[in-house]
Every structure is written in C-alpha cells, then in structure tokens.
C-alpha cells in the first residue's frame, strides 16, 4: 500500500501534515506524536524578527470551532534556525516552514535565510487575517499576490506553496494569480474571519475584535474551495480547514488535495494527526486501494 505523495518534487511519506500555528514547532506535540511518522511538520509562521502578537484574549470558542487572533507571535527566523530546525531534523521529520512578514522584503529575507537549511518546502502565509500589515493584504488582491509570489519564488531555494485566504469572492482567481507567478503548490484554506460578542459584558470576546475561524465548522467551505482550485489550476494542493478525522481528510483528497493538514483538531486530540493517517490506511485497506494516488481528485 502506497501512501506517499509528491508535492512539487518533494516526497511526503504520507499525505498528512499539520496546520501551521496549531502544532507549535512540533516539539510541543512530540510527547503525543512521533514526528517522523507524519508526512511533514508544518511550523508556526516565522518572520524575519520576533513578533509579539496580539493582546489577550486571543481565542474564543464558537459552535464547532474556534476563533484565533494570535497575531503571528513568533520568535523570529534566528531561533527557528538555531533551535527548531535542528530539533525537527533530529526527530526525522520532513519540514514545511510557514513564512510570514509585513512586507515583501520581510518574506524574502526569511526565505533567503532558509535557503541552506534542512527545510523541504516553504509555505508562504499571505492570508493571516489577524495582523494589520502584510498577511491578508497580499491574500485578497490577485495583483499583490502575483507580485509577492514572483518575488518569493525568485529567491527561494526550496519549492514554495502559497497559502490562500478563504475570505475572497473567487478563490480560483487567487489560485491562478499565484500559479501564473510561478508558485509550486498551493495550500488552503487559512481561517475565515469571524467575530464573537460577550452579551453579558457587551464587548468583543477577542481583544482584536475579529479572529480567524477554524475547526470542524469551516470544513464545507474549505472543501468547496479546494475542489474549485483543484479543478482550476495544475499545481499540487495541500488542503485544510476543519479536518479532524480520516474521513474528513479523504474528502479533501478526493476533491483534489494531494496532501492535507490537521490544524485545530490537534487541540481536540493531540494525536489527531496519527489517527488520521491510520484511518486513511484503514480506508485504503477496506477498499483495496493500492496507491493513494487513485483517490486524489477522484470526485469530479
């Protein structure tokens, strides 16, 4: 039985990675998960310098999901290179580094610093709804997305994956803009912008007022977008948004995702990634599927 997939020339031993920001550097979950058993570990967004993130409360629970406005707190690329990447290498994990920035320059700086590092893929986060500058600004305008993709691709030594925001009218337009600019792959979706009000306090629950919605509740929207993009462009897709079971993951794969990320589900079950991998194997066994390739995009 073959579970391995190929994303832009990089082989993942299985199609399951982690949603950036939901799995820390990987280290925090290593008590629950053998990191080398994952298709890859996708790390929390990293910038050229440390970012303090937003004030608290940074999260709120909503029906079937959560809102977060972490604001991309991160210790910066130096720490990633000194501490996190060696740890991941030692753990035998394939690594996707999620990159964030406030300007194109920031992104390029991070990407260049990573050029000689043990990193398999670069996931470029142009879709974080929780920071004022950068982030989603690039992710909601096809021209801006095209431009930054081109810049990053020109400097990147590893294949790049542009991570798309679902907060757009036409996700295929965004996908095309990134593909035209040379991205090697796409990942989607980042969070849907949402809000929660505390009616007793008559105030926003989040200090940031709005936050990004994730978790099982967003799955149908994510799946629809993955399907649309898979049928619009010709690069591999990492699908995500609400995946908490193998069944969920298989829906994304059948819709056209080459790989999937387990995000918020890690908070519901720290071994969720492993459970998803095992569940996919069970499904393949039960349906006598020799190669997961047979399932990718099989629903048209």
């Amino acid at each position, binding site marked *: 039985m073959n579970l391995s997939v190929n994303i832009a020339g990089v082989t993942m031993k299985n199609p399951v990675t982690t949603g950036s920001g939901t799995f820390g550097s990987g280290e925090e979950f290593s008590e629950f998960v053998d990191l080398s058993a994952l298709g890859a570990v996708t790390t929390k967004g990293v910038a050229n310098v*440390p970012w303090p993130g937003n004030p608290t409360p*940074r999260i709120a629970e909503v029906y079937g999901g959560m809102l*977060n406005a972490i604001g991309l707190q991160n210790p910066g690329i130096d720490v990633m290179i000194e501490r996190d990447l060696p740890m991941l290498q030692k753990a035998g994990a394939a690594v996707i580094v999620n990159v964030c920035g406030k300007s194109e320059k920031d992104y390029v700086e991070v990407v260049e610093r990573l050029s000689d590092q043990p990193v398999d893929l670069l996931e470029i986060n142009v879709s974080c709804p929780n920071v004022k500058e950068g982030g989603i600004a690039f992710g909601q305008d096809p021209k801006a997305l095209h431009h930054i993709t081109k810049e990053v691709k020109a400097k990147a030594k590893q294949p790049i994956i542009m991570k798309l925001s679902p907060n757009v009218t036409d996700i295929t337009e965004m996908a095309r803009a990134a593909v035209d600019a040379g991205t090697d792959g796409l990942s989607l979706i980042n969070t849907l912008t949402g809000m929660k009000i505390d009616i007793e306090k008559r105030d926003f629950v989040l200090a940031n007022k709005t936050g990004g919605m994730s*978790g099982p509740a967003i799955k149908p929207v994510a799946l629809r977008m993955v399907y649309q993009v898979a049928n619009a462009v010709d690069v591999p897709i990492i699908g995500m948004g609400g995946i908490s079971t193998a069944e969920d993951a298989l829906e994304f794969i059948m819709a056209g995702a080459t790989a999937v990320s387990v995000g918020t589900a890690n908070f519901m079950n720290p071994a969720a990634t492993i459970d998803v991998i095992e569940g996919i194997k069970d499904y393949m066994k039960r349906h006598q599927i020799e190669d997961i390739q047979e399932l990718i995009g099989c629903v048209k």
Partner: protein
Amino acid sequence: MGKKQLTAKIISQTKLADGIYDMRLQAEEIAACAKPGQFISVYVNDKSKILPRPISICGIDAEGGSLRIVYRIAGEGTKQMAGYKAGDTVKILGPLGNGFTMKPEKAVLIGGGIGIPPMLELAKQLDCPKSIVLGYRDSQMFLKDEFEPYGDVFVSTEDGSAGTKGNVIDAIKEQGVEGSVIYACGPTPMLKGIQAYALENGIEAQISLEERMACGIGACLACVCQSKEVDEHSKVHNKRVCKDGPVFDAREVEL
C-alpha cells in the same frame, strides 16, 4: 513529562456550595506524576464545544490513581460537567503546566474564590510551617475544613459574614500573617495585590495565572501573559501560561 490524553471514569461528583462542584476522576497515568499547581484540560461531552476546559488539580491520590478537581459553573461547559454522574466518563489531558516550586521556608498559601482548590494539594504536600489565607465571597466556605489540618487558616469574606471583611490582603494585614514564600491562586486583581505586596516586602511569591487556552501544551500561543524580561522561548515579552506557568514568580510577570 508524561502528559496523557485519556478517558477518565468519574468516581464521584458532589456539590460543595452554590455552583461549586467536586469531581473525582480515575486517571492513573496522570495521578502518577501530577504535582500541586498543575492542571488538567477537561473536554466536555458536547460536540459543539471543541476546546477543553483547564481545571486545576485539587487533589492527587497517586496510589489510588485518582485526581480531584473542584470547579465553579462559569458557563455552558462547566454547567455540563456539573451534570455528569459517577460512572460517566470524560476525556482529559494532563498533567499540564508547571506546578508550584515547593520551598522549605515558612509559607503563606493564599487562595481566592475558585483559586482555592489548587492550594489544597499544595498544603498537603508542603512540608513546612504554613499559614493559609482563603478568600471567599460569603459564608459558603467550601474546602476550608479540609485545610485546617495543614496550618493556621485565616479567612476573608467579601460580605464580612466570616473572618476579615474584605479580601485576602486585608486578612493578611489584619491577622498579621507572615512568611518567606507566598503561594497564591485567585482572580487577577487579587494576584496583582499580592504581587505588589510581595515586591514591597521583598518576599518571593509564586502566583498561578489564568488565560484562555486552546492546546494547553505550549503550541498555539493563545494563553500568553506579559513577562518583564524578554522570554527565552518566545524572544518577546510573552510567556505561555499553560506551559511556562500557570505558576510564575511574581517578579517575572506583568499583570
């Protein structure tokens, strides 16, 4: 070390006061390594709620393999928990966070409101002279009796119905409570008062903080508090309550 997610059987559930419940859980693997001041994450059996509720460990029976938690109904999740019965099961994750660092010096244990429960196991395990100061809203003084064997117990109540009228700081001042190390858990205004008091008096204070959590294990950065210095792990002025805390030295955090 040794964090586990497991399905725990509820041994018993009792009501201690209005809206305050006492639950004992069979959870060998967690009880075996838990320490005072640590907490567990409790997942409620309601699929609309995906995040676990952090609840401090109030009692540890390592031999019996059981844990005790005492919690207040604060919203829908804890309300549902209060409806569970002996024999029901609940998914939990723990032990989480760093507990109190037990020092061999004269101790003052301070608990305010629903911050009282974690002080009980600490009182049991802390092997030195102790004063215990408990702040309640009114005369419903849950757990107070259980503290009596471990030290001198002083009480404050907001409505003045027992002990010192006011808060725990008022009680400390009124009763002249003294010690070299303060261990405290309670609402932020109380901890702020204790922080100020400890800094003024040059006493060490270990304070247990609260913040909204998602992962509970240091990965998501939901639960940060402000640190005085740039934090080693985050490289900014943030520490994670779930992993770097919940117990912090009062000198290292801004409240």
